[in-house]
């Protein structure tokens, strides 16, 4: 990508010390901005709602949710798929841009990794809730139990468990690895005793040794190489929960790539959203530039187009299969009780997103922020229509039903949004929201190549 045309990705005057002081200053010295405090209070309140709703669901049972036969999956699975999708771009941005040596990675990779981490936390809670008997979740683990039973290895739900668990551990490790040298930077700059001890412990004695860096870079490279297969496998496996079944509307071979593209679309949108918020909140307009937003906008557009292509292929397959049930599912999506969901999705993900073709739009923070929000809503509607329309009317008309989410569904969902933003808000106050060591390396690159 041409990146020298308009605005430099790193300001020409920025030095190693300046970037370290500026970013560690946000954590160590700068008081929280008023907008941060307001957002914190709102998010904390929502997180409490989440907690309360969880207590209610755990004590009363999943009957509180609008899930029943035939729509047995409902909201919890819609939200799992949506959240895990958001997580994916975090991993991919960080890893793929590292492998391809993209210079715009340095200022946004930390936000992307943190976003991935917290989105998986939100995603992981739903399957547990949806189990109905969450205290038996350990049945999914293979262990020599007294009943001499093993997990059913041919079940996508067991694959799911392994995929999400792997992804969670991977993301935690990747985030910590990226934070390790930055914790050392904070330790070196901390003046208060408790921050010195806190970051000293977190930095584990990292001392910026060239030999340490050499091993660090190798390990990081291994992590990055593995990132893309992990991302594809995790969302791929989740899509197999649907595709392996014989439900019309689920049983499509294009599901794994279709889900991955959708995941990346919503993930890049969320990174763009966070980038706009953080650059405004902490005055980082020179580090997270309009050029960065431009690149994020391009990625959103690319994956939106892949998603749109998948829509056409899904419709084509339904028609070309000659299968009455598949065709009926499609006609039902267009005209049935959930038709408004389908058409809103088309408007947001197919029509509105075309605005990203315009450079002006991609480079205008509020515009790209709005498009990021609408894209996330669109992707959520997509997950909703896949889960709801496919199951509510399948082969037997006697089993048809139209169900809607209950207020408990909505409480848990909005609560999880609050939990996510709470975690992000706390994270940017205790850890550097821009990777300092990656920035310093980028500055060195700039200086040595002009």
């Amino acid at each position, binding site marked *: 990508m041409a990146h020298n045309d308009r605005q430099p990705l790193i300001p020409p005057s920025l*030095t*190693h*010390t300046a970037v*370290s*002081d500026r970013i560690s200053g946000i954590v160590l010295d700068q008081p929280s901005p008023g907008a941060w405090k307001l957002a914190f209070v709102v998010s904390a309140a929502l997180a409490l709602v989440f907690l309360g709703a969880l207590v209610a669901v755990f004590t009363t049972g999943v009957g509180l949710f609008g899930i029943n036969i035939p729509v047995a999956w409902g909201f919890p699975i819609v939200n799992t798929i949506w959240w895990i999708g958001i997580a994916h771009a975090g991993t991919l941005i960080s890893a793929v841009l590292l492998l391809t040596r993209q210079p715009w990675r340095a200022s946004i990779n930390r936000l992307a990794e943190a976003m991935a981490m917290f989105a998986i936390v939100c995603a992981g809670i739903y399957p547990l809730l949806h189990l109905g008997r969450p205290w038996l979740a350990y049945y999914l683990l*293979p262990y020599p139990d007294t009943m*001499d*039973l*093993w*997990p*059913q*290895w*041919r079940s*996508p739900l*067991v*694959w799911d468990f*392994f*995929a999400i*668990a*792997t992804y969670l*551990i*991977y993301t935690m*490790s990747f985030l910590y*690895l990226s934070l390790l*040298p930055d914790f050392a*930077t904070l330790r*070196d*700059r901390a003046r208060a005793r408790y921050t010195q001890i806190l970051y*000293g412990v977190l930095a*584990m*004695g*990292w*001392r*910026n*040794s*060239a*030999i*340490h*860096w*050499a*091993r*660090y*870079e*190798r*390990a990081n*490279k*291994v*992590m990055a190489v*593995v990132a893309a*297969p*992990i991302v594809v*496998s995790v969302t791929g*496996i989740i899509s*197999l929960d649907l595709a392996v079944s014989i439900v019309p509307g689920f049983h499509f071979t294009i599901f794994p790539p279709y889900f991955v593209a959708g995941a990346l679309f919503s993930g890049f949108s969320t990174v763009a959203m966070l980038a706009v918020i953080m650059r405004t909140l902490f005055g980082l307009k020179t580090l997270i530039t309009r050029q960065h937003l431009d690149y994020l906008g391009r990625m959103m557009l690319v994956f939106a187009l892949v998603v749109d292509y998948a829509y056409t292929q899904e419709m084509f397959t339904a028609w070309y299969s000659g299968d009455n049930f598949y065709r009926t599912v499609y006609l039902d999506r267009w005209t049935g009780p959930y038709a408004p969901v389908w058409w809103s999705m088309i408007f947001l993900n197919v029509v509105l997103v075309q605005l990203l073709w315009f450079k002006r739009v991609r480079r205008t923070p509020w515009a790209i922020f709005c498009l990021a929000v609408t894209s996330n809503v669109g992707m959520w509607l997509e997950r909703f229509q896949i889960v709801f329309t496919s199951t509510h009317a399948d082969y037997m008309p006697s089993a048809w039903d139209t169900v809607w989410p209950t207020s408990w569904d909505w409480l848990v969902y909005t609560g999880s949004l609050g939990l996510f933003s709470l975690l992000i808000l706390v994270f940017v106050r205790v850890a550097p929201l821009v990777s*300092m*060591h*990656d920035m*310093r*390396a980028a500055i*060195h690159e700039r200086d040595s190549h002009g």
Partner: protein
Amino acid sequence: MRGIAMASQQIYGTIARFETAAQLVGAAAAARKAGYRHLDAFAPFPVPGLAPALGFRERRIPALALLIGILGAAAGFFTQWYSAVIDYPIVVGGKPLASWQAFLPVTFETGVLSGVLAAIIAMLIGNRLPQPYHPVFNDSEFDRASGDGFFLLIPSVSATAEERTTTHDFLKGEGALNIRELEP
């Protein structure tokens, strides 16, 4: 800048700060050429070419990650095969007991996870982390290693006055800004 007095005192080594990354790489290469061993250098980011200049090449981590990854995948596959074929054979949906295609997702995940954890743990063990204490932390200027400081550390072998003077003069000749001796 502390001098090189107190010849009887034990020291860990001599540390010198350089102005730029390029100078540090040059000094590291020169120090190796001059016969100094077990050198270490400190820089705020991975400086290209610095580790080789110190005589260090990292080759083991990717191979180890691959090996452990393959072992992890094999263990994952074996667990599934053993439990489904040997320990609790039960026919589900008329599928064969050893339906290996269905075992692949879990095999892949355990393999990838083992490889990734191997890479990280190998990095930490290789770097001897966590390590709360190290003599370089005694240096008054060392916090600049995470900002704009480029340091070269020459460990002391005998700590004789002669060796200390030679090291000091060598570093000075390489253009070091500040040279200090480190307590052990």
